Structures are given as C-alpha cells and as structure tokens.
C-alpha cells in the first residue's frame, strides 16, 4: 500500500500513487470518463475483478489500451487524439450521443485534473487567463456526470494551496466536485461541505491543514482515527 514519497519533505503519494488510490474507489460496472494527466494512469491500477467502461468524448464507449506501434488506425483515437483501441463489446456513437451519455447522467464518474477546487465544490480546470483558451468537453462532463472526482497536487508549484475558499481561476462548473484526491489526502464533498476522509501514508492531519486554504470538516478527528 505504501508508495514511495513524492516529496521527501512532507511525504505523500506520487502521481501513480494517487491514480492507484483512486482506482480502489471505482466499482465494477462503472462508466468512467478520464481526463488527461494523472487520470490516464488509473486503468493500469484497477483492482482485479473490477471492470469499468471507459468513455471518450469523441464517441467511444469501451476504450482499450493504446495500440502497439505500427497498429495505429487513423479512424480510432481517444479524446486526446492519440491512437486508441477498443475493448471487446465496445460501441461507437456520434458526438451528440456521446454527450447525451455525459449530460444525461449515464456516466458514473468523471475524473479530471484541476487548477483549483473550492470548499463548495467549484472546479477551475479549463483556462489560465493569459494563456490560450480551450474548453473541450470539461464543462459538459462536470455538469452531467453523477460524480466528479478532481485529481491534483495538493499545492501548486509555488506551494500555494489549490483547495481554496473561492476559485480565482475561471470556473468550469459551480458546486460540481464530489471528491478530491491529492498527493496528501482524500476529501469528499457531502451536501456542499468539504470533509477530510483520509491522509496519505506518512502525512499527518496538521500537514494537510496547513496546505489547505478552504475550511473543512476533519472526519479523522470525528472518528478518532489518526493518519
């Protein structure tokens, strides 16, 4: 269970460690959309016996692993426009039906990277002002998926908390995030309230408190568990 520390100073999970931890929470039969970055590491850590259907915005239900070199098909890519494969039993739909799957509540979980998550579950992940704006399917995914799990480093490269009272980056959606997985901790949002569910191995509650700008309920205190 214990992963090598991401940072010698405070411990915590590596990028793969975050993906492995999140994969433990996926249930057999879930329909899941994975964003780019850490979320794409998740399939390799699915526990035995857990089958999920991976959805890609460009109309794939049942995405498989990348093809071996030389077997790429220009007519089959993932939502990141990389060559893809299909699992047995996959289905192809057009983009409107693909997003009917998304908005219609037929996705169990979307796992997305984040710039910031607020204590109320607001998500900012599509645009850094001053850079080139592009949104893709992010706003549809957060509006439609039953669960929105944000995956990110706990603090940014300057050490500033990414779990904030109010997002300063432009929003992708309001009150949409239901869980947050970071290198340091796992939070759930329950009826609009942020709750600390667990600390990563080797990380204590004080470390999480110091690096989290939004107020939250510490469920580890409530049940008397340590980290």
């Amino acid at each position, binding site marked *: 269970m214990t992963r090598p520390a991401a940072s010698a100073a405070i411990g915590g999970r590596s990028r793969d460690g975050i993906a492995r931890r999140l994969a433990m929470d996926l249930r057999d039969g879930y329909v899941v959309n994975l964003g*780019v970055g850490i979320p794409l590491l998740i399939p390799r850590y699915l526990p035995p016996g857990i089958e999920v259907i991976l959805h*890609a*915005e*460009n*109309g*794939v239900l049942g995405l498989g692993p990348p093809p071996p070199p030389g077997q*790429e*098909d*220009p*007519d*089959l*890519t993932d*939502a*990141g*426009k*990389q*060559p*893809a494969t*299909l699992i047995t039993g996959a289905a*192809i*739909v*057009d*983009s*409107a039906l*693909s*997003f009917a799957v*998304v*908005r219609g509540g037929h996705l169990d979980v979307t796992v997305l990277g984040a710039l910031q998550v607020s204590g109320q579950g607001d998500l900012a992940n599509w*645009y850094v002002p001053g850079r*080139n*704006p*592009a*949104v*893709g*399917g*992010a*706003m*549809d995914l957060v*509006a*439609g998926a039953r669960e929105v799990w944000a995956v990110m480093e706990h603090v940014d490269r300057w050490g500033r908390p990414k779990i904030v009272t109010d997002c300063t980056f*432009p*929003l*992708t*959606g*309001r009150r949409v995030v239901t869980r947050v997985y970071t290198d340091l901790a796992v939070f759930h949002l329950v009826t609009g309230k942020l709750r600390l569910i667990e600390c990563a191995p080797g990380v204590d509650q004080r470390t999480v408190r110091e690096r989290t700008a939004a107020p939250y309920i510490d469920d580890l205190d409530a049940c008397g568990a340590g980290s």
Partner: protein
Amino acid sequence: MIDKFRADAVAALARVPSGATVAVGGFGSSGRPDTLLDALCVCDRRELHVIVNNVGSDFTGIGRLLAEGRIRRLTASFPVLPDFYDEYFAGRVELELIPQGTLAERLRAGGAGIPAFYTPSGAGTMLADGSFPLGYDAGGAVSARMAEREHRDFGGREHVLEYGIVADFALVKANQGDRKGNLRFRLSARNFNPLAAMSGRHTFAEVEHLTGTGELEPDDIHLPGVFVDEVLLASARRAVTAERSS
C-alpha cells in the same frame, strides 16, 4: 434519378461564396474532410465563419484555411493550434468558444428543427456570462464579447439557453457512401460528421469508398442521404498522426 455523386471537388465547392458559414466534421484530423477543405482553398474563398470542434495541430485541413487567412470567425471547443491564437489575439479572427457537447447538440438541433434548447453545460461560467472575448482589435484590446446566455432554473439547477446552428454549408467525411448520399462512418471518425451534415442547408460529403446503391444495408446507414446534397471521393487518406491532447 437521384445521383449526388460529383467527380470534381473544386467545381462542386465553387458554389460556396466568400463570407459563408460552414460547419465541418472531424475531431482533430480524424474524420476531417480534407479533400473538401483543400478544394475550398483552391476556390480562394475568404471571410468564412467555420464551425468545427478543433483547428487541428498543423496546417492541413482547417489549419490550411487559417494559414491562408480564410477564416473570419471560428466556432469551436478546442482550437489547439498555437498559430490560431496568434491570429485571435491579433484581432484577425474571432473565436466563439463553446463546450464540446453544446457544440454537438447545437449542430444536431439546427438540423432537427429545434431553434434552441437549455443545457446545464457552461452555466455560471465565463462562456455563458457575456465576458469571454469574441475578438480583439489590432491594439490587443477586447473589441467584442460572446453573447450572455439566458439562464433559467430547472429542478433547482441553473441552465443556459443555446441556439441551434443552421450552417449555409456543411463539409463532412464518411468511410462509405452511395450516389443517393447515404453515409456510413468508421469507428471514432464518425464524431461530429453526422451532426455537421444535419446542420448544413447544403451538405457536401467526401467518402473513402463509393458504394453501389443498395450495397449499404438500410439498417447499416448511419446518416441517410436526405441530409446530403453532393458526394465526392476523398483523396488518399493520411497516416495516423498523434496530436496534442484535448
């Protein structure tokens, strides 16, 4: 007798005037109608309003239209190509940035006679509140902003009003098609193609394989020929190219 097949793409595309609104299928280079886009360039059309999910990652397809200065406004969800943004910030092309699912549904709705619909996507964001810059002037100041969306509450959730898109023309690509315009797509190259085709008042389809009428089983046709006006043969297909992620 219905025969929508045309041998000459440039001659066919000549009916598209400069200034037209053109919906285009494809997701990056996958399923993108490059034969038709190249013909549009050969016809030297300009001031186009292009509706497409991505510009792509190079100067082929939509990228060629951009490089040749033929686009006045782009409606898209994920432009990608850095050179597009150079043109946008320099005030030479406008950007209407639309959530991907909203773009797909707007094309579908326009082709299905639905003038507008409410969606939760984008509610409460700068793509709906009237603040996103549609364009810049030559000095780099914002010259126009995207329209503020009408917001309405359904079941305690905020939704925004989005309009169906009826494009003057549509350019799409299919794997198979017949002379009646019936189309069949292949794998994820389907993407926006049927929706763009539906939204066009006049729709061109390039096909990799022209099939004999009746060869496609009625149950296997993804888009019936009623949505397609002219069918052309695609020139040789490109090798797969990895593009930047969306």
